[in-house]
Every structure is written in structure tokens, then in C-alpha cells.
């Protein structure tokens, strides 16, 4: 078994290298440790939410890059593939919390801050991905995971819901977008969520009780099976 185990380890190290190479994560947690999630910081509150700026020097090809705000976990992040922007001059990528526009999203209520994601060249011209195949990854922290929020993009006049995936720690969600602009997490439905520090309440007491009883039964059955095995020996 040991020799096969070494082969498995070798294969897994190659797999890990490839996974990390092609699926870069924005920030820790790198594996499945409990995440540390500080209270969500709302624009206008104290302390204020942070902005982020990263300037990339001129290069032949725009390098793979990321930027994220300084909270734990970051409330807004952007991951950019290599070659996404024209990098013949320095490019400054920035994330800024901005007041929500008066226009409401069609699919629910904005929860948390609206963040403006932008990339500008040295002359201040706004940049967009060079082709639709070069999307950027926008990751936003929401206030809750249930119901699952949707990240919307605001183009100056209307909000557009985007296909949103759970990105893990601290109610973070991600979308891919072929355009920059203003993004926000939108809670489907009509009621707002109160920001929580971490963890949460205990909804569905009946479900929890049922699972606890199931667990007790499982433990009893396993004890019984183990005792029977012991007696057979």
C-alpha cells in the first residue's frame, strides 16, 4: 500500500500545482480553514470601507494581476488575466466604494457597498478588456449567503444581473465580466439583511434538532456494529 501511496502523493502534487496555476485564488484562506470574517464596513459608516489601487508598469503584455481592498476578507477584489488590457503605457487598476445610484436593480435590493472597478492608462483613458474572451473576475462580499445574492453591473443607466458563484469565506461571491464599471451584491426579494460580524443565528431549529437526533442514532448504530465486530473476534 505504501508504494501506491507514494504514487498517489506524486499525482496529487502535480494536480495541486496545475490547479493553483490555472485557478488562482485572490487571497487566503488557501485551503479549508475556518475563515476570519470581520464585520462588513459600509460606506458612510465608521470605520470606512477601503479602496484599492495598483499600478502596473508598461509592458509588452499586460500581466496577470489582482487588486483587493484591505478588509478581512476583502470586500472587493478583481482578478485579471494576462493580456486583458493594452499595457503599452502604465495601467492603474482601482477599486473604490461609491454611493449607490438612484436607479434600483431589477432583481432585488443592493446589500453592502457599490464598488467602482476601473483601469486607466497614463493619460487617464478608461480601459476595457481587449476582447470579450478576456474577462475579469469581480469578487464582492455580501452580507449573507442565503438567499444567494446576485452581483449586478451598473452601466450608468441600468443594472444588469450577472451569473454569480459562491467564492467562499465571509459571504463572498464572484462573477466574470467583459466590462468594468460599478458592481454590487443584490439580494433577491425585498427585505434587507442586517450586517453580521461572523457566524450567524440559528435558523431552522427543527432541522438542526433533526440532524442532531440523526447523528445520535448513527453513533448508537456504529457503537453497536463495533461491539458486534468485537464480540465476533
Amino acid at each position, binding site marked *: 500500500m505504501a508504494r501506491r501511496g507514494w504514487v498517489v502523493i506524486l499525482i496529487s502534487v502535480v494536480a495541486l500545482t496545475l490547479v*493553483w496555476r490555472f485557478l488562482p485564488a485572490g487571497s487566503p484562506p488557501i485551503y479549508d*480553514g*475556518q475563515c476570519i470574517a470581520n464585520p462588513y464596513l459600509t460606506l458612510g459608516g465608521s470605520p470606512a470601507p477601503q479602496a484599492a489601487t495598483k499600478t502596473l508598469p508598461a509592458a509588452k503584455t499586460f500581466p496577470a494581476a489582482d487588486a483587493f481592498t484591505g478588509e478581512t476578507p476583502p470586500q472587493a477584489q478583481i482578478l485579471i488575466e494576462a493580456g486583458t488590457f493594452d499595457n503599452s503605457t502604465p495601467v492603474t487598476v482601482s477599486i473604490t466604494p461609491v454611493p449607490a445610484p438612484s436607479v434600483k436593480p431589477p432583481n432585488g435590493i443592493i446589500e453592502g457597498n457599490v464598488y467602482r472597478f476601473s483601469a486607466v492608462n497614463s493619460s487617464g483613458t478608461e480601459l476595457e478588456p481587449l476582447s470579450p474572451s478576456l474577462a475579469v473576475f469581480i469578487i464582492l462580499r455580501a452580507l449573507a449567503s442565503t438567499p444567494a445574492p446576485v452581483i449586478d453591473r451598473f452601466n450608468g443607466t441600468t443594472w444588469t444581473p450577472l451569473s454569480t458563484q459562491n467564492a*467562499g469565506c465571509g459571504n463572498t461571491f464572484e462573477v466574470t465580466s467583459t466590462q468594468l464599471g460599478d458592481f454590487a451584491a443584490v439580494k433577491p426579494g425585498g427585505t434587507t439583511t442586517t450586517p453580521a460580524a461572523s*457566524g450567524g443565528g440559528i*435558523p431552522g431549529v427543527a432541522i438542526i434538532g433533526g440532524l442532531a437526533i440523526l447523528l445520535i442514532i448513527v453513533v448508537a448504530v456504529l457503537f453497536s456494529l463495533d461491539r458486534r465486530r468485537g464480540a465476533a473476534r
Partner: protein
Amino acid sequence: MVSEHGRLRVRGQGATSSAVCLIGIVAAAGLRAGVGAPDTAASMPAGVVFAVALLAVAVAAGWRPARPRIAAVGLGAVGGGALILTWLASHGSIGVHIAPINAGLALWTPVVALVAVAEEVALRGALFDALRSWCGDGGALFATTLLFALMHVPLYGIGSLPLDLAAGLLLGGLRMVSGGVLAPAVAHVIADLAGGWLL
């Protein structure tokens, strides 16, 4: 010499234990999700409940700690190093900073270590042993790796599946090489703690 009847009986017991053990682990994960909602991944009480439930399942299934071996600890440390180095290498640098010690980290560290150890004891201890007596090493490795990855999808999203499959495979490999849960538990704890301690 073990008779064919005896072999079949052991396999049958292994199948029953595996199924009940699996139900217990899934129930523990469900309990964690229920207690920790709406942000399960960040809920420390939910993590503690999950760990205690997993340990109860493992002990009930007959898992008992073996005598610790230095070699297993060393192997686990190398495995944990591999988990961290592949991450650091993907970021193009191996320069890291240690997070400043604060009350949050002081509480977080033992909880994370407890959850990691409990996952290893339940998955690559009790469940792995039960599955191995039913469907061999390959089946046990496949099932525990898949379950390990699926367990983390509700916490970290479907995007975490490839990473957790690869990490689970490594931990399963450590289990096979060392013959116990100490090596994968050490590797798992190191990798998870790195998420909080390394910046």
C-alpha cells in the same frame, strides 16, 4: 486461513459501517451548515459542533488513536509543506509575512486545528478503514477524496472542488503511506493554519 464466508462477512460489515459512517459525516456537515448559517465558513461555534460530531462518529465506528510515530509527523509536515509551497509557487514568489498575533487568531487557531484533525479522524480514519474492508484501498481513497471535496462545496463554492480534490488526494496518499491518520492530520492542520498565519 480466512474462509470465503468469513471474507464475505467482513466485507458486509465494512459496507454497513461505511454507509452508517457516511450518513453520520453528512449529518455532521448538515449540522454545521445549520448552526453556522448564514455564513457557515466563518462560524467558529459551527466549526466546533462539526468537529465534535465527526469525532463522535469516528469513536463510535471503532476508531482509536494509535501510538504516535515521529516518522508520521515528519511525513505530515512534508505534506503540509507541499500544500503550501504549491500555493506559494503559483503566486510567483515564496516571500510571505506572518500575521500579527491578535485575540482573533488566538481563538481561530485551535478551532481550525480541531476541525482539521476531526475531518481526518472521521474521513481518513474511521470511514477509510470501513471502506477499505469493503472495497479495498482504491475504493477507500476514491470515496474519501470525493467526500472531502464535496463537503467543502457548500462552504467555499463549486470553484473549490478541483483544489479540494487535489488536496484530498494528497491527504489520502499520506494516509496510505503512513498507515494512520497522524500524517494527513498534521498536513491538513499546517495547510489550514497557513491560511490565517501567512499573509
